[in-house]
């Protein structure tokens, strides 16, 4: 039986607002297995981004527990949690989120800055991942000198340079045309085949083809309504955000 990488138990998240409480998550229980690729879909406001930020050790749940590789991440101190993010998680944000005044190489080096490694070794690691994502000749370019697809590749390289076991991606193809989006998804599949556990929030039903499993969130809960899941997977009734 496959080993569980991410174990969520009764995750709840309540945000306070002037209009009262907002229940973003109302009790999510889910296991993600090692080397599994999971697509997370759902309408806007369904709790996808909240779930991703909780898994990303960025946003403590109001109730429930989450363990990654057997570590209860919210039992860790703030600083230890930062170390955990560096060692266990890679993030690919919406709209790439590269630092505009750093070159592709420097952006990829960022997660290594706080690691105790010789600079030469850090550069070698960064070069390896940049080659892996197909940017061997563009390492010294600033983000604005790269196409959208290339920027996405830099973002992926930055996410995997530390060789984390888990990759979290939020709408990675949202700003790309379908061809480039397909290339990026192929890259994700290739990384998954190499053993990386991937959890991806997406609105694009096409992307689910590259993932091993698709889960759907509805009103802060896992949706088990087959008709709704099929409708989303078929691309009907989808809205952006979430």
């Amino acid at each position: 039986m496959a080993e569980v990488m991410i174990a969520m138990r009764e995750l709840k998240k309540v945000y306070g607002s002037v209009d009262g409480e907002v229940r973003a998550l109302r009790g999510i229980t889910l296991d993600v297995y090692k080397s599994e690729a999971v697509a997370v879909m759902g309408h806007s406001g369904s709790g996808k981004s909240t779930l991703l930020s909780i898994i990303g050790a960025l946003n403590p749940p109001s109730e429930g527990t989450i363990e990654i590789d057997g570590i209860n991440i919210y039992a860790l101190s703030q600083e230890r949690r930062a170390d955990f993010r560096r060692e266990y998680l890679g993030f690919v944000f919406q709209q790439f989120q590269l630092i505009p005044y750093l070159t592709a190489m420097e952006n990829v080096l960022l997660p290594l800055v706080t690691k105790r490694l010789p600079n030469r070794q850090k550069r070698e690691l960064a070069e390896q991942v940049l080659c892996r994502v197909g940017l061997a000749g563009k390492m010294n370019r600033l983000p604005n000198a790269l196409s959208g697809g290339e920027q996405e590749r830099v973002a992926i390289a930055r996410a995997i340079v530390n060789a984390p076991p888990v990759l979290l991606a939020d709408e990675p193809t949202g700003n790309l045309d379908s061809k480039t989006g397909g290339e990026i998804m192929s890259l994700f599949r290739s990384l998954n085949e190499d053993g990386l556990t991937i959890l991806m929030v997406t609105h694009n039903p096409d992307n689910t083809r590259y993932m091993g499993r698709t889960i759907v969130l509805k009103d802060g809960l896992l949706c088990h309504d087959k008709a709704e899941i099929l409708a989303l997977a078929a691309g009907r009734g989808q809205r952006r955000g979430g």
Partner: protein
Amino acid sequence: MLFVLLGLTIGMATVFAVYGLLEAMRAEMMRQASEFGANVVITHDRGEMTFSYGGIALPEVLFDVEPLTLADVAAIDYIPSRSMITAVAPKLLGMASVNGREWMIAGVRPQEEFRVKPWLRLQEALPEAERKMELDIYWLDLARQDPTKIVLGDRQVLLGSAVAAALGANPGDRLTMGGQEFVVFGLLKENGSLEDEQIIMNLAAAQELLKLPQEVTVIELATDQTRGAERVLLDDLAAALPEAQITSLQQERLRRDENLTRMARFGVSISALILLAGILVAALAISGAVRERTREIGIFRALGFRQSHVARIILLEALLISLVGGIVGYAAGVLAARAAGPLLQIGTLAVPWRLDLLAAALLLSVAVGLLAGIFPARQAARLDPAEALRFI
């Protein structure tokens, strides 16, 4: 961050311009004090104090006291601290009648006298027409009179400006005093001091005119304070001239020092205020920059940067900007101080480049920068990464 750099640079420049100016003014005053003017006045210490010379009370000069003599003047040459004395100017003071009016006679050694009184100037014997064309700026001549050109014959006199005006005398005119005829060698420019009202002649001629052979009323000494301790000099003089009253004009210098100290305190206060303002401006600017970089900080935190790493980034940036601000500010301060000398009408000041001050500027600037960066760094470190990433 440009505002931070600008604020720090202006703050540092102001501090070091003020400091440079004050230091240069102090050095210049010390130089002038040691190079120009009499620092010690020797008179006799007995008799009624009925006579004043240059603000210093003198013993009754014409009678009733045992006067100083040329032997006392000669004795000064043998004191151990003689090397501190740059000029010895003995003089005999008395009164003489010219054209029915009493004038003060000063018998001096002219070259020594011009050394201890650098403000004395001879009027040039210009043609009348040319004299009328003189501009005021002509009188701003600061070059001291060359004492070697003041060679008075025994029957020659220099007239103070007031005397010359009252007598209507010009160079080459003849005056009769005590039955002796004197030729006017030259006229002194008006300088607002005692000399305006004096007839100056050789010491020997005055002694003969006043019938006081060998006698001296006062001995003025110019001293170089950099060559030794004034206290030692005064003790040596007291030992060599036990009957004399020796007055140091150190008081005058102390008064100047006191003024300078007041100015320094004022400068320090202004500098402290500007530095304080600099810290606030820098803190606000860094804080603003932190707010603008919320997204970036969120990314750093998501990538595994600890709170301390984020704080270190902000402080490191503040440190680098401070170092640049310190260097540029120090350079600007020195240049501003040099430029301020002529503007403040205190001449060209020597404000040198000093490594110790550059180091002080760097230290101060870094301290200010770090102080200004502490709050924004804490602010950045405490940013909730989830909140920061909501902007994404």
